[in-house]
């Protein structure tokens, strides 16, 4: 059925937005307005504050950069010097004062305990000093030696004195005594002597500096 309203306009009932639709519009506006407000709060409140803090910190960092660069330049210079000192330390630390060692050997031979303990003299002396490591020796002092006594006990006594002398700071203990007795020389005094090898191995640089 078709319903036709024939009433004049002034008598017709006014057209109104339906209440449900109005509710929808209102909800839509409320939601979007809230979102706009939240965006505005983050954009002009939090973001601005964070940006401001970031700018201040960047300024601070920029102010520190020259000082940091100065520090780093000093560190670089210091590292170069430290490397040089380390190398010099290695060079000088490896050095053995051979004057001192040979002088102490001469002292020991001359003192001989009470000068009546043993009579020692040498044919030669070979001293070598190397970098050592990997099973190699760090150096040695070797010599063909003689004791003007008829007994090997005096040789043992001499080697024991070396172990107890200041030379022991740089040298390992000498090898156990070996040697051979030489026949009597009629025209020389003392006539009987013992020939023996003197061999002393140098300790490592670390052991030498520790003691």
């Amino acid at each position, binding site marked *: 059925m078709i319903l036709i309203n024939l009433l004049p306009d002034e008598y017709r009932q006014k057209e109104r937005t339906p209440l449900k639709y109005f509710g929808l519009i209102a909800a839509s506006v409320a939601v979007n307005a809230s979102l706009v407000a939240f965006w505005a709060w983050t954009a002009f409140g939090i973001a601005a504050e964070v940006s401001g803090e970031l700018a201040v910190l960047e300024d601070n960092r920029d102010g520190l950069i020259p000082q940091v660069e100065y520090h780093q330049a000093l560190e670089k210079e210091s590292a170069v010097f430290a490397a040089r000192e380390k190398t010099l330390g290695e060079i000088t630390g490896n050095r053995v004062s051979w004057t001192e060692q040979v002088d102490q050997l001469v002292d020991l031979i001359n003192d001989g305990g009470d000068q009546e303990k043993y009579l020692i003299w040498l044919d030669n002396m070979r001293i070598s000093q190397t970098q050592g490591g990997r099973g190699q020796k760090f150096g040695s002092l070797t010599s063909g030696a003689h004791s003007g006594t008829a007994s090997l006990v005096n040789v043992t006594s001499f080697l024991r004195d070396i172990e107890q002398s200041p030379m022991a700071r740089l040298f390992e203990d000498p090898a156990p005594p070996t040697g051979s007795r030489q026949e009597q020389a009629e025209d020389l005094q*003392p006539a009987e002597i013992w020939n023996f090898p003197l061999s002393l191995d140098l300790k490592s640089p670390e052991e030498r500096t520790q003691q």
Partner: protein
Amino acid sequence: MSSEKKRWVVTIALTLLCAAGLGTLIYYQEEAIQEKRVGIEQLKNQIAQDRALIKQTPDLVKSVIVQRETDAEIQKILSDEEDVNNFVDALYDFSTETDVIISNLDKGRQNRGVQGVQDFQRVAYNLTFKGDAFQLLAFLNKVESYQRFMSVTSIDLTAAPRSDYENADVPLHSVKLELETYVYNPKQGGEAVQIDQYDRKRELLISEISQRTSELRVKPYEYRGQRSRRDPWIDPRVKIDPGASPPTIAEQIELVHALIERVDAAKLLLEEAQAADTIILEMKLRSSLEDEIAALDAEVKRIQAEGRLVYVLAVKRFESEVVGGVKWLTEEADRAEAGQGPSLAILRQAEKSMTEFIEHQDYELAVDVFNTIEPGLLLAEVDERKLPAVQALRELHTLADTVISFEAITINITGLAIYKDARPVALINGRPVAEGELLGEELIVRNISTNRIEFAYRGVVLARLVEIDPLN
């Protein structure tokens, strides 16, 4: 679809679209904020690290200053190119000073030992020379004590043959040395960083710099020469004549031992004589000493003439401890009589007399005693044992002389003004003088009291009695 429904759909769609757009905007906004917050955290950490680093800068500056100054010291210790050229000259100088005879010098292997370190270049030399053990030691010592770093890496000594003993005054051994040094030629490092007020900061670090440089310096060994020692590379056995019958080794050692005991006893006698408290005791001890020295000297000459000692150790001990000991005793006894000044006993006697005179206020007599003995004091004070007595005599003389000088000064005290809570004032020689003021050259008023005034004069406190009535 009715228009009503369409309107609903369009409205809802527009609402959702708008909300989605705004949500996206908010999402990206939040992302940006989050990123900035992360950046802030990183910057804060960076700044904290930078500040911590900068905090260490003053210590690093100190360290670099010390290192720079130490580096200058390294350049002094290690050779430069010019020094290497002088190295050979130095070796020849050492050979002249130590009497070794250099026969060969050539360059050794280079650049061993400091691989990868461009700043230090090894320079080695092989040296061949002849000399006895003590010349070798003296030469080695010169090399190892040289102002520039030098190291001996190898020694090869072959002893002089026995046949040389009769031909040469001193048998010379053949020695081959390998020496090395390092040329310091810093290649890296560039320009030094500018340090503000460098000189002032260096001055403040002077003790640390000094300590570090002394640590770097290689301490040389103090070689004290031959000191009566025999050369261990010379066969010490002596030839004996087939017909001769010298005492046994035990008898020779015993003979020398007995003589050494006598020399030691004579030395004790000398010490007792030098420390004697009275002049009479000193004279008695010196007389005994002279007799013993004469007897020992005669014994030494007799043994030397008879040639009874042939065992090398006995001969060596006889020469060093007996002959040397008698010689030393003779020289000491002679020195005591001439050029030693007054004896300890005389000095003690003089000190006692001066003390007594000063206690009795006879200052002129104390000075007279000092003047009598004074010419010999310069010689006496060289002896450590006499030095305390000489110093005591000088102090007593200074005291007596000061008192005499003080007494000669005119000090006329005519008034005193002593008020509560005010500095006392004395009227001396017509002018008011307060405590601490100078009265004349070297004369300071030290303390004013109602009955006496103390003066400080030449480091001594002296007093004058006040013989007037105080004003208050």
